[in-house]
């Protein structure tokens, strides 16, 4: 399948970061049309019809989410763009924001209008200073042009927008933790219910949190329509996904492809195959949280349903390829370390379970593992999450467990080899 051009439609255009250049390509026409010719409910209807599903990783239908905004709240509504992008091996939001910040701003104007929010924030992870400079400049241009601020496009719609930097905490990508962080607090996810963002979000007001890529899909959908959008991707997950390919491949990098493109095509055609002529051993299909798949699953179409059937997920669409020299135990250990490091520390299973998992993996890798450790690892994982039924406040429970459970599912022999040989066979 060829490279798709929805989110990345203008990425090749020189200086598209400038508002003038962006406008020459037809930029801000979708926003103008939305504000002057459409109303919030008709915009929401188009997005619902397009069946655009949230690219933050849960693939919840975006139009439906907007429709959940509490009605009649005495407090003002808020829109937040989630550009925290801290999922390991995921880097395409950074690419998108740097490549075409105005498309994000335009998507946010339309979304804010659809949910009737007058304040919006782009929450970026603290490391994204380079993105922040680019996005801030674009926001300033939009203000100057009157596309942000008061009375946008001559309507009575006002919208303020600003970037907001995190400071090093993966969990702040979780929407309610992000909200706490934006409120100036520790990034503790909130219990839902009662704190569903559309009901009680930022400052306890109705809030829509959408991923950066989700929002960048909005302008093309408004311009070209839901039917056009649905010509791409799968029936249940139309459109495209910005995949980010990393690891042992010849051409790592970000790329926009239709939803449902197979893993094999992504790796072999678009990333130039495994580096150095080595054999492919394992892939993380959607960021660290999705765990590992073995080479036998390479023909899986990359869409939420197909990966769901394998017990994993499309997640962030970050494809990380591991060749035959890779020690899976080592990879799983590193994943467990990440989970331990990034648990916010509220939920007992996630806080103390990840600590335990990491230490069990550590001793497995260093050759002190015991046979019993394998069922123990499985059970510790199970007490954190049973498949997608996490026993924790937030979905981090899945991140905690999936690398371990999928590692054991596909590469149990390697774990056993570590125990039997009292050390890492790859050393």
């Amino acid at each position, binding site marked *: 399948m060829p490279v798709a051009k929805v989110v990345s439609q203008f990425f090749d255009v020189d200086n598209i970061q400038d508002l003038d250049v962006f406008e020459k390509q037809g930029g801000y026409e979708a926003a103008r049309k939305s504000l002057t010719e459409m109303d919030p409910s008709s915009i929401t209807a188009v997005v619902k019809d397009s069946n655009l599903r949230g690219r933050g990783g849960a693939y919840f239908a975006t139009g439906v989410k907007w429709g959940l905004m509490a009605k009649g709240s005495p407090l003002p509504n808020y829109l937040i763009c989630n550009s925290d992008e801290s999922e390991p091996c995921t880097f395409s939001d950074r690419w998108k924001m740097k490549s075409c910040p105005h498309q994000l701003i335009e998507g946010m104007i339309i979304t804010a209008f659809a949910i009737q929010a007058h304040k919006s924030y782009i929450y970026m992870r603290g490391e994204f200073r380079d993105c922040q400079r680019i996005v801030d400049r674009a926001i300033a241009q939009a203000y100057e042009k009157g596309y942000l601020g008061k009375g946008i496009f001559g309507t009575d719609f006002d919208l303020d927008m600003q970037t907001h930097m995190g400071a090093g*905490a993966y969990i702040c990508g979780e929407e309610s933790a992000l909200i706490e962080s934006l409120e100036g607090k520790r990034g503790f996810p909130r219990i839902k219910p009662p704190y569903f963002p559309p009901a009680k979000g930022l400052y306890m007001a109705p809030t829509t949190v959408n991923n950066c890529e989700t929002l960048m899909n909005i302008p093309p959908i408004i311009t070209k329509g839901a039917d056009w959008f649905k010509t791409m991707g799968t029936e249940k997950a139309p459109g495209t996904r910005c995949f980010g390919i990393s690891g042992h491949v010849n051409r790592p990098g970000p790329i926009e492809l239709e939803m449902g493109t197979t893993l094999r095509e992504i790796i072999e055609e678009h990333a130039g195959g495994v580096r150095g002529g080595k054999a492919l051993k394992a892939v993380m299909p959607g960021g660290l949280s999705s765990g590992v798949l073995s080479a036998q699953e390479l023909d899986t179409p990359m869409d939420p349903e197909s990966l769901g059937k394998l017990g994993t997920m499309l997640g962030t669409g970050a494809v990380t390829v591991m060749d035959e020299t890779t020690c899976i135990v080592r990879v799983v250990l590193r994943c467990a370390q990440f989970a331990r490091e990034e648990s*916010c520390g*509220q939920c*007992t*299973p996630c*806080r*103390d379970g990840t*600590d335990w998992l990491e230490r069990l993996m550590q001793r497995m890798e260093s050759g002190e593992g015991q046979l019993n450790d394998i069922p*123990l690892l499985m059970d510790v994982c199970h*007490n954190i999450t049973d498949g997608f039924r996490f026993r924790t406040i937030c979905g981090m429970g899945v991140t905690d467990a999936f690398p371990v459970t999928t590692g054991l599912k596909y590469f149990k022999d390697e774990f056993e080899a570590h125990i039997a040989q009292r050390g890492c066979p790859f050393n």
Partner: protein
Amino acid sequence: MPTLKIDGKEITVDKGTTILQAARKLGVEIPVFCYHDKLEPMGACRVCMVEAVTPRGPALVIACATDASDGLVVNTQAPGAVKERNGVIEYILANHPLDCPVCDRGGECDLQDNTFRFGPGISRFDLPKRVWDDYDMGPYIARCQNRCIRCYRCVRYYTEIVGKPELGAYTRGCTTEIRTFNDRHLDFGMSGNLSEVCPVGALLDKTYLHRGRPWEIRDGVTTCAHCSYGCTMRAGVRQGKILRVKPFDNEEVNEVWLCDRGRFAHTRTRPERISSPMIRKGDKFEAVSWEEAAAAAAKELKAIIASDGPDAIGGITSGRPTNEDLYAFQKFFRAVIGTNNVAHRFQPMGSAFLAAFGVEAATNSIVGLEKSAAFFVIGADITQTQPVMASRIRKAVRKGARFLTADSRRLRYNMPQITTSLRYKSGSAAALLLGMVRVLFEENLVDLAAAKPRIPDLEGLQRAVAEYTLDTVATQTGIEAQTIQDTARILATSNGVTFLFGEEVLESPSAPAAVSALVALALLTGSVGREDAGLVPIVQDCNAQGANDMGVRPDLLPGYAPVADPDARTRMGSLWGSPVPAGPGLGFAEMLAAAASGKLKALYLMGNDLLKQRPEPETEAALKAARLLIVQDLYMTETAKLAHILLPARSYHEKQGTFTSIERRVQAIREIVPVEGGARPVWRIVSDIANAVGKDLGLRSAEGILQEIGQASPQYARISYDTLGTFGKTWAIPSPDSEPASEPVTAESAPVEAR
């Protein structure tokens, strides 16, 4: 109202009830760690997981934060739930030290109990435990981070209940620990509650550290004597010594809290107790028997009565003795000596309050505070003086109540939001209040019909405030006219206001004017006669209310009967079998002045260290000028050192009696430790002196006195030790149409008008 089934038992509960609360109602036990009855649910520990079967199928949910919904079927014993609970407990124990034998919480630890009842019974964790270093959090709370289970209750306690975060969760994940900013000490205020808020032995009462096991301790339930709020507490006693003090849960007063002043009072080092009665010989004291002391006192008193008349004798006490002691004290002066020279150390509020209500007491209740829509706090540093009350108010403010303050000091209220905060120039509280009354009249923001029955002379009031124009008041108080006007308007437009007024109002020379303005404000804003609004004088001593109720005042007999009223005197005289003197007595300050000028020859001080309370040289001069100074106290205070006759008193842990709190709640104190040094109850001491004088006070026991108080004062008519129970009984303010203080109002009907 949803009906649900928990473990096969059906129950119907109010909307908004959680599964946990519903289960507790049914007696179904679900373990919790992070959940605390008084804090917002956080849902962090995950130990309360139960299976909830909804139309969408079964799912594990947290019982502590999931609302009971109609038709829900909950299984607390579902295999998935049991496994999850086991898992959580195993995780927590993984890094928890097994040092229960040396942990103060052993035997009263949530982790022990939950592990015992709900735990897996084994641990598969065979790795080294994580450890933390501790640091000094100050003299009252000991930190043992290794035992912390990260329930965040302490952190939330400070935010929600104290209103001033002092503890934080530091770093994140499995390294999270609880610390103070820059390792500072915790403030002395409400820190002691941490020892119960913490479910394990991570934050401990340092004063009790390694001093006792809970099963060796006998708890004595009593009432705290360290402010007028009247928290119920339990003192843990072993071998006659108080080892620790904890709150005794009392939903109507302190809920589950105590302030540090009350909790740690027993740990303070004190001067030596007076061990026996003593008589001054030159500049030395000589220990004597009780009989000798009584005889000596009687001899001198008789001599003074003979030479200068009974009005040359006076008695001064404080608001700290029990009702029984105070009653005996005033009765001694009136019935034995024959004078109305008896007073406590606080200044009377002035006539407006009495005229309006027939009593001097708060018009609403502590529970009512929580329902208030607006507060106006003036001249009262409530976070310092009544911290537990401040927490109760904070609850209302969290729910959105308006909170307005006025003070000359820069105070911290630690409220989640403050509507308005006024700073007036010292001494100008009355002007501010009168100015606001004027605004109400001026802008016709008044409820005249409601005010009329309580303010007989409305026109007079209107005339009196006329001169307090906004400009005048602005100049006097230093507050902008507009702000004063706005504040008055906020008060007028709130749905009832609770007015709390404290030391800057009550102890100022302009108290009568300020109180009259407050009475007017409350009445004109329709804030009286209801539970969720009213007037609350913030008196300080634990039984300051009782001291007024008992008639320890030159102008009032027990039950607020005016001395000037011949009928009242006759009634009291026939109860006592001895005439009540008619002459107006001297108040507190007047007595000191009269002693200094030589007019008052004898002073009897009960339970107050006057030299400490009034360090001015005049006090010492007055005390030294008296021909006879009888001092009754626990300790050899500076005041006691001046006495001619010194009488040892019992501490409030050594006697039986009652205190009446800020909300008219009569509560018992109990004898929980042995009496030190043969100290006797007050009624016994004054009875012995009376006997030596040749009269019988007719008081034989604390119970008997409370009974007599019931006869003397209508408010206490149905109050007896039998009916007090653990939490006491509240007496009610008479409604305006009933003759003040003539008709007995009972605890059951309290507060009359609020219902």
